């Protein structure tokens, strides 16, 4: 029991650290559209959502946003609020979709999460800067679907790794096996 708890805490810490690292790395990979990133850190959030539960995933997402923006020197700036809103909205959408439509795989859930992530970011950008960002929305939406599918497949294969197997509930095991 105690050994399992230590294992769980260690894995959550590793996931949080990984999310922060991926977040910082992807901030150096510009895609040519202001504020748009690959969404690599989303892989970790999806894994946390499937392996553990919504609250652990939310905790990792919040730690990722706060620590990565603190390290990048952009905390409480525009990018921070865009990232925070996008992450929370994306996680909520993924959790609801995972709970309601049980037959959807990780790839579908990840794609919807990615769409909600950019929608949240655009929403904040519109509130901050006005309608100019609306012009980018159709293009960003297409990019988010492509990156969402990619992160979904990456998450699917990472979750099949031996290290995660002991944490998977029976229900999640079935979903990951799909």
């Amino acid at each position, binding site marked *: 029991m105690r050994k399992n708890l230590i294992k769980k805490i260690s894995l959550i810490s590793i996931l949080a650290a990984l999310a922060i690292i991926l977040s910082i790395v992807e901030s150096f990979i*510009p895609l*040519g*559209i*202001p*504020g748009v990133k690959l969404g690599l850190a989303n892989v970790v959030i999806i894994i946390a959502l499937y392996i553990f539960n919504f609250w652990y995933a939310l905790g990792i997402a919040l730690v990722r946003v706060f620590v990565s923006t603190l390290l990048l020197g952009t905390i409480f700036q*525009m*990018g921070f609020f865009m990232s925070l809103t996008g992450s929370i909205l994306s996680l909520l959408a993924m959790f609801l979709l995972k709970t309601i*439509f049980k*037959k*959807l*795989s990780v*790839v*579908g859930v990840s*794609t*919807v999460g990615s*769409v909600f992530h950019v929608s949240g970011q655009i929403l904040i*950008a519109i509130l*901050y*800067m*006005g309608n*100019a*960002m609306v*012009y*980018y*929305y*159709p*293009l960003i*939406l*297409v990019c988010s*679907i492509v990156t969402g*599918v990619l992160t979904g497949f990456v998450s699917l294969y990472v979750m099949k790794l031996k290290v995660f197997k002991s944490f998977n509930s029976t229900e999640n095991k079935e979903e990951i096996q*799909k």
Partner: protein
Amino acid sequence: MFKKYKRDIILISSLLIISLLACLVYFNFNGSSTNLVANITDSNNVVTQIDLEKETDTEREITVDGLHEDLKVGVKHNAIRVIYSSCPHQDCVKMGTVSITNKPIVCLYNKVYIVLISNADGNDINI
């Protein structure tokens, strides 16, 4: 393989079709590259209008108030670009010269955005 992901394929295809249609509609029916007017909104939310139709082919440099540092913007006949910005990723500079209405230049870091509108009616612009 496809049967296993049937629902995902339907969901992703629907999302992709909707977004691609939005792109198609937007980029096909909303673009104009003549009689352009640049609406430059600076970090203080002050809008400066520049009639690009009246500009010459020689690029003129103007300064725009940015949140962290001023931006240098180059304007010429029906075209505009950001020459210098202090933003970390330089997305606004990398966008290069814009000469169409549906492609705004946005600098989130300095809170500046430039939108081109078509002045097809030839109305006077207050610069």
